[in-house]
């Protein structure tokens, strides 16, 4: 079953085509890494898929009414905004907004989802602290927990692990893998190709105004593409510890 289906998608910003002709589907149980150099249009692609900006072509999510879409897909923007000093738990509870009726208050199930998301992101100890007083990496984890609490079949996250310490980078990617094991899917943009190779089931490489490659990490990250798109060389080997990928040199 496909959770989102994107067909011939294109976005123009200020008269310039950011990308065009982008088509892909995301089924259940996938962790899809969206990779590409700065300015390739990763954020723009994710926002267009959600229908948050004008685009050409079609996206099955963007076609839905906003309230229905919020039941299917959660979105974690790259800008880590927490405007007021509300408690960590309150921020995570915002993930339940799409599931509540107009005057309905959070119930037992909502609290359980929030508690699970806090646990998952190792935030249970700081649930009562004002979220604005946390460090940048902790805030990122709060916002990931918020997106998890929305409990949607699809999670779309824009560079969620940037700025996290190594342990939390890995555990966040493992959380995404756990979601995939439970039949959900994640579309995540990232720059750390080593983590992408180890934890994503599939990579979409965006660059030169189009999708350059879409497939398993091994298929996508060929030395020629790395040289052409990112301008780097890398060492890649499937070891006993799983696939290991280490960027080495800048080529240009």
């Amino acid at each position, binding site marked *: 079953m496909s959770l989102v289906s994107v067909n011939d998608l294109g976005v123009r910003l200020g008269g310039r085509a950011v990308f065009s002709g982008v088509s892909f589907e995301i089924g259940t149980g996938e962790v899809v890494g969206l990779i590409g150099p700065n300015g390739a249009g990763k954020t723009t692609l994710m*926002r267009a898929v*959600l229908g*948050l900006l004008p685009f050409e072509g079609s996206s099955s999510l963007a076609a839905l009414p*906003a*309230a*229905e*879409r*919020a*039941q299917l*897909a*959660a*979105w*974690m*923007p790259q*800008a880590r*905004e*927490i*405007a*007021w*000093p*509300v*408690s960590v738990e*309150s*921020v995570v509870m*915002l*993930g339940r*907004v*799409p599931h*509540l009726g*107009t005057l309905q208050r959070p119930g037992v199930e909502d609290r359980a989802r929030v508690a699970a998301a806090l646990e998952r992101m190792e935030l249970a100890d700081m649930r009562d602290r*004002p979220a604005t007083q946390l460090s940048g990496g902790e805030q990122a984890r709060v*916002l990931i927990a*918020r997106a998890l609490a*929305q409990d949607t079949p699809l999670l779309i996250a824009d560079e969620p692990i940037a700025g996290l310490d190594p342990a939390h980078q890995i555990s966040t990617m493992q959380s995404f893998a756990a979601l995939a094991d439970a039949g959900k899917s994640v579309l995540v943009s990232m720059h750390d190709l080593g983590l992408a190779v180890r934890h994503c089931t599939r990579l979409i490489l965006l660059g030169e105004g189009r999708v350059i490659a879409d497939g398993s990490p091994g298929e996508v990250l060929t030395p020629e593409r790395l040289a052409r798109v990112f301008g780097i060389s890398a060492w890649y080997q499937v070891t006993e510890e799983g696939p290991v990928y280490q960027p080495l040199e800048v080529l240009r």
Partner: protein
Amino acid sequence: MRLALPLLVAVAVLFLVSLLTGPAEIGLGRSLAALFAGGEDPVALVMRDIRLPRALLAVMIGASLGLSGAAMQGYLRNPLAEPGLIGVSGSAALGAVLAIQTGLAATFALGLPLAALAGALGGVLLVMALAGPRGTSLTLILGGIAVSSLAGALTALVLNLSPNPFAASEIVFWMMGSLADRSMTHVWLALPLMVVGWALLAGLGRGLDALILGEDAAQAMGIDMARLRLMLVVGTACVVGAGTAVAGAIGFVGLVVPHMLRPLVGAHPGRLLWASALGGAAMVLLADIAVRVILPDRDLKLGVLTALVGAPLFLHLILRLRRERI
């Protein structure tokens, strides 16, 4: 909820005190009895036609300023936002000033408030046209600043060219804001618009909560940003336009009250709405009692007092914020 009860009690007590404050010395029991008794007894007239509209308007305008201030701060995610930001109070004042200058205000009793409402309507239509249907909060602020400064400049022009010093001084005094000598007609003029505005603004709670995470995230959570913005602008225009039309410009309440109450509601923008409505009502009631008690024979203006009290209060909040940030 621990906050709701004290605020409600404060509003109720201050409302009673406001009813009992005035140059005519009337006892507690006598004045309350007169309020409900009816008849042509002079005490009943003082209570029903002078003190009751004054206290009612204080509650209505205070609640309006607190509510719209909290909504504006929540929407813009900025503690310095205030209801006047979208230019409604400025354009309502321009309408009123034109009514005084042209003599419309002197021709019939409701000339001034109706002209102020027309000014507010013109201002809000201009702001919405400038901000555009798909704009962000930034375009709304810029549109509001443009309309505010235009209205301010035109008001200054009217004063500048005013050949009549009496009209000029009347304009200046009117712009300071006051609840003195208002009648039940003013209450009935402002109330319907304010009720519409309150209903629109009270419905923003969930959207403002979601906006903690930014416009993009709120939109992805199913919040219709265009609708939220429209409700905010129309709601604020209704309450602030109606308030300015009957009482002139009363500053600082919409800025300071949400700021003071924010820590008491866990900084939730949604809960801050009703808390600020009650807090605003209490503050304007208190200020309006104070102008009558401090200088009973000098007609101290309400807007002057709220600004005098509000500015140091605001400074205190800034100093507290600075300490927290270090």
